């Protein structure tokens, strides 16, 4: 393997990390504010993929625009799901049995509705962009990955802005840090939770659309990405946005470079092994490293 090959792998890992981060951030928001692990995340990723696909096939809407449209659509969908189902289960400071079961049930429902509507054959979105590449010396960038990376980074930047500059964002961060103190200073928990759930689902839908531009998909689509999202947020320490970026990069690097030594169909085992390693070595995630150091200092 020469330097250019190595560089290609590193770059494609970085590009992959972008979409991985976008895919995981929705789960972190929901977990942070409500302490609910959104198992239905996989279902919304899959729906996002079909949403972008249908817009492209039926109305010829560019997938990238489809992803932009996915944000408001899935935001409303998420708020509806919260209003209909999620707000009815008891809240707690750690994930409860009802919340896991409810969202797992919702995942089953979404997945099998999709089977009824779209059947179980694999679909993919093919645009002129899909196969084109961009050369920079001996290093090649696949065009789709560049576009997807750009979109992922743009959406994450937007989220960062909302979280730091708006009242809603501050309420979200307050609830994530200390929900009791948040209530005391007047954060409306129920409304913040509903909007956060909407934002979380919006990111799931949009990330699903981005993933659909790179991979083929079926109603089973979300399952493997759900595991990856878990690994990333566990690596990131569950509630840290910087942690997610690092977690996404770690997973993307490990997956990309494992291709050199392991056959591709062992990939899910890689994500799981990384999860176990993370739980044993870094139970607080990479973010825990800083806080531990800060406490020592």
């Amino acid at each position, binding site marked *: 393997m020469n330097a250019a090959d190595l560089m290609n792998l590193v770059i494609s890992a970085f590009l992959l990390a972008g979409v991985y981060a976008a895919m995981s951030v929705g789960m972190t928001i929901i*977990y942070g504010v409500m302490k609910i*692990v959104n*198992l239905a995340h996989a279902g919304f990723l899959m729906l996002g993929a079909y949403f972008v696909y249908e817009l492209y096939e039926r109305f010829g809407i560019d997938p990238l625009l489809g992803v932009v449209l996915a944000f408001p659509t899935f935001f409303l969908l998420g708020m509806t799901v919260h209003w209909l*189902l999620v707000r*009815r*289960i008891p809240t707690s400071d*750690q*994930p409860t*049995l*009802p919340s*896991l*079961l*409810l969202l*797992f*049930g*919702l*995942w*089953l*429902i979404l*997945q*099998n*509705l999709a*089977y*009824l509507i779209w059947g179980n054959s694999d679909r993919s979105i093919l645009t002129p962009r899909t196969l084109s590449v961009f050369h920079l010396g001996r290093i090649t960038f696949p065009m789709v990955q560049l576009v997807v990376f750009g979109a992922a980074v743009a959406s994450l930047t937007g989220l960062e802005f909302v979280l730091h500059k708006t009242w809603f964002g501050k309420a979200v961060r307050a609830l994530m840090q200390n929900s009791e103190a948040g209530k005391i200073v007047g954060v409306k928990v129920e409304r913040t939770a509903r909007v956060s759930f909407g934002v979380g689902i919006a990111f799931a839908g949009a990330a699903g659309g981005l993933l659909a531009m790179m991979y083929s998909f079926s109603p089973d689509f979300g*399952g*493997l990405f*759900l*595991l990856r999202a*878990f*690994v990333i947020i*566990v690596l990131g320490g*569950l509630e840290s946005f910087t942690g997610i970026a690092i977690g996404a990069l770690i997973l993307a690097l490990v997956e990309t470079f494992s291709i050199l030594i392991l*056959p591709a*169909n*062992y*990939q*899910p*085992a890689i*994500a*799981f*092994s990384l*999860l*176990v390693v993370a*739980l*044993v070595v870094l*139970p607080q995630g990479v973010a825990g490293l800083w806080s531990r150091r800060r406490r020592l200092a």
Partner: protein
Amino acid sequence: MKARQNISGSRKILSALGEVVLAVLTLLPLGNLSPNTIRLLFVTLVWVTVSVAWNLVGGFGGQISFGFAVFYGLGAYTAALAINGGINPVLSFVLAALVAMVASLLVGLPTFRLRGPYFAIATIGVSEAVRVLMTNFSLTGGASGYRIMEKGVFRQLDHYYAALILALLAVTVSIYIRRSGFGLALVAIREDEDAASDLGVNPFRAKLLAHAIAAALTGTAGGVYARYAAFIHPQGVFAFNIGVAILLMPIIGGVGTIWGPVIGAVVYGFVNEELVASFPQLHLLLYGTLLVLIVLFEPEGVVGLFRKGYPLLARIRRAHAVHS
């Protein structure tokens, strides 16, 4: 006071009912039942075992696992390899239990130390990972499956009684645990882990032990099933559906109770038979809907309905007595 009487009354009825059901199940196959009916009973008894096993960790201990298909599948494959290697079936089932227990430690050791969603998350991961590994594992034929060659005549009733004995064992273990200090420790962990460990319970050890016992029972059930089916493949015994089914049954019946998982397994066993035959695609959709509805409206499942219904029934009976 009245409520207490009602509960102990309902408990008496349930245990009497249990004895009757047991007697019927033991004698039933001696009558003239069709092989298909016996097969259905056999499968239901296997479900009862895994459902009761799941409830030990998920119900008593409050640790939800989505990955019991791993133990079921590993048990099935271990027993299959052992039987083909000429080991006697009972010993093969013991081996299946041991392998499943070891696997339970691999999941439990890294995750039970931590609180929060780690265990539930890891169980989803491990079931995906193990299915992939087994699909590519050449010793057992990979994705194309593995056949069990057992010498001698196939006698369905042997299999039936093996499943019956195993189901009885599972229920006995469940009752014993629920009444022991260990069971109380598990419930305490479910309700409040901090308080439990303040009172001297070691949550890590208790969760690990419950998980291992449940895995052993589930692995044995997988082995009993594999010996009956004589052919197993990763998309069957390790399937996502199996993992869903194992968690659905105790929830239908009443999670955290002794008889709920049994009732849930019976309901599931019979309903699933009809549903899968008539709606191969729709049944998971229905299970998802059922899960959502139970969580929202009757978290205690059938047992919860029964508990609510019993005082009501008693009141109606009393009202009738006054009228007549």
